[in-house]
């Protein structure tokens, strides 16, 4: 077994163990045997004799939340990995083209208009897609510059523009009711995940993942200068547009249900790169495994440590930073 395959096996094993643990712990006490017999009755279709709340907790509350943490973590890590490869820049995160800011603006607007949860999510999803669409449209029209630079710079300036619209809405919001709701949304949380959120976000994230998986070998060519890639027969423009669309779809779907959760999309790809090197085909699966495991671990702590919820954005950095530095110190691999 090579050290690379060890990385996959360890990450996958950790993910499975964490998932089992995440199902077993929570504010509402449900024993492991209850979970096992519930799942057994679900699989065999037999009637269980468990208290009805056990089924509600496992199937409606904790289960969807655990799976959503996996999906959101994997999606953010995958999008971050794709962008860091494509922009040839290790400091790039999935929101470089404004997807998170656009989603935030959508959600903030929906809260400002006192809409319901589903509308808030739809506004966030639509806002994320629209922001990146706008950035891409403007960026590709700025000729005479390096296309990647044009894209990144457009992303940064449009991001600040959307940020100031968010600030304006916060300023105008009702300080007793809407402003706290906006602040909590911007902090990110998986506390309110319902089965329907998972059912909406997971297919979209998978739809974004498909092109990345199919094109994973060609992704490496995007790291080359455009003319070299073209000499190898790759239409970089189209490939880039496809990857941007895929990463945006994944991130927007994730952010719409979870709010903004930082750190994962920026640093999980680095952790994966430290373990298996820069080749995208090897990097992507490991980054997704690590991202899913990391966010699941963090969210499990968020919902179990104290009576109230801890925003995941707080813990991702508190736990992630020392873990990342430790990994960085151990690894001798170059980027």
């Amino acid at each position, binding site marked *: 077994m090579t050290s690379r395959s060890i990385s996959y096996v360890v990450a996958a094993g950790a993910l499975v163990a964490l998932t089992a643990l995440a199902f077993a712990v929570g504010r509402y006490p449900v024993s492991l045997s209850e979970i096992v017999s519930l799942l057994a009755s679900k699989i065999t279709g037999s009637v269980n004799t468990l208290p009805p709340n056990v089924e509600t907790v496992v199937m409606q509350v904790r289960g969807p939340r655990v799976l959503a943490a996996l999906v959101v973590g994997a999606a953010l890590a995958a999008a971050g990995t794709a962008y860091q490869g494509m922009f040839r820049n290790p400091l790039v995160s999935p929101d470089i083209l404004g997807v998170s800011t656009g989603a935030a603006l959508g959600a903030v607007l929906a809260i400002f208009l006192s809409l319901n949860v589903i509308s808030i999510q739809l506004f966030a999803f639509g806002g994320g897609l629209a922001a990146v669409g706008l950035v891409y449209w403007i960026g590709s029209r700025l000729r005479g510059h390096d296309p990647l630079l044009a894209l990144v710079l457009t992303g940064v300036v449009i991001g600040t523009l959307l940020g100031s619209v968010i600030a304006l809405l916060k300023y105008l919001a009702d300080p007793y009711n809407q402003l706290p709701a906006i602040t909590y949304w911007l902090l990110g949380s998986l506390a309110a995940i319902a089965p329907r959120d998972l059912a909406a976000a997971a297919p979209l994230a998978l739809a974004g993942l498909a092109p990345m998986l199919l094109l994973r070998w060609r992704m490496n060519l995007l790291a080359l200068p455009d003319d070299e890639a073209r000499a190898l027969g790759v239409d970089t423009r189209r490939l880039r547009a496809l990857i941007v669309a895929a990463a945006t779809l994944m991130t927007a779907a994730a952010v719409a249900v979870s709010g903004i959760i930082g750190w994962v999309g920026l640093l999980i790809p680095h952790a994966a790169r430290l373990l298996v090197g820069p080749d995208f085909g090897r990097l992507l699966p490991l980054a997704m495994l690590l991202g899913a495991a990391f966010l699941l671990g963090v969210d499990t702590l968020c919902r179990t440590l104290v009576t109230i*919820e801890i925003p995941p954005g707080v813990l991702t950095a508190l736990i992630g930073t020392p873990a990342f530095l430790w990994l960085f110190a151990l690894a001798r691999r170059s980027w």
Partner: protein
Amino acid sequence: MSRFFVLTLLTFLGKACFAQSAAVDASGREIRPPAKVERVYAAGPPASLLVFAIAPDKLTGWTRAMRPNEVEFFPERYANLPELGRLTGRGNTANVEMVLNAKTGLIVDVGSTGPTLASLASQVQEQTRIPYALFDGSIESTPATLRALGRLMGNEAPAEKLAAWYERELGDLKQRVSRAKEHPLVYYGRSASGLQTGGKGSINVEALEVLGARNAAAEARAGLVTVSFEQVLLWNPEVILTTDPNFWKSVWTDSRWRAVSAVEQNRVYLSPHLPFGWFDFPPGANRLLGLWWAGKLLYPQVFDVDLRAKVTEFHRLFYHREPTAAQLDALLGEPGVLPK
């Protein structure tokens, strides 16, 4: 010599006119209001409400313009007062120059009286030379705040009338609560998801505490917090109160909420919010109506009160206009406000 005489005379006159009796506000700061306060700027909604109740003609403006559905509850000339913005607390939206331009004789804020707001008040007072008084906004201290405010504004009589009435209402409420045998476990759910709540001592659930209800989230820290759905299920409240119509609608269709006792028993209620919220925000005297409303829902046996009469009386005293029958129907007839 004559110059000295004129100066002395001027100083004396100035003192007589402007620095009449000194008072101490709730933060312990000394306030020297002018002899006659003509116009008062209220720095936040709870303060606007009290100044308006005591002497509506002295209010310089609202912190935010009345929305169309709020206007109808007030006499027209007051509903259309200008929008001046908030001055302290959660972000300034008011311009200090505009406050000066409104010929303000006194600035008041009702709410927190902690060091942050006290220092802000002192700073604005130094800049503008307008006395700036802070008062406690809690439900229990509303009568005392009304009296102190009336003294500062030179409107003791109407303030005393309101304060005495408010005291009687609170006394009646508490006397009823003391007769209640069962105190249900109540969860207060805010925001569209309903997972935002107030812990023990939080201003958002002050009404629950005055009502002697058991707050399900009492173990959480004071202030607004987010909790997980599992936690709500674990608390399993018997009654849920909310201020969010979207949340109220969603509990009946969301299969997760159906597992909660309050939803199962159809005891989820939506607080009216016009023209000022009844239960939580703004955190002012308006919450008296929320007390009667929630009291009726939590202790039906001892709260055999006519809510329509309570609303009418409060509106007459504090908003200077009695609601029409149609307005009362709309307030109390909104789905979720009262049991079916």
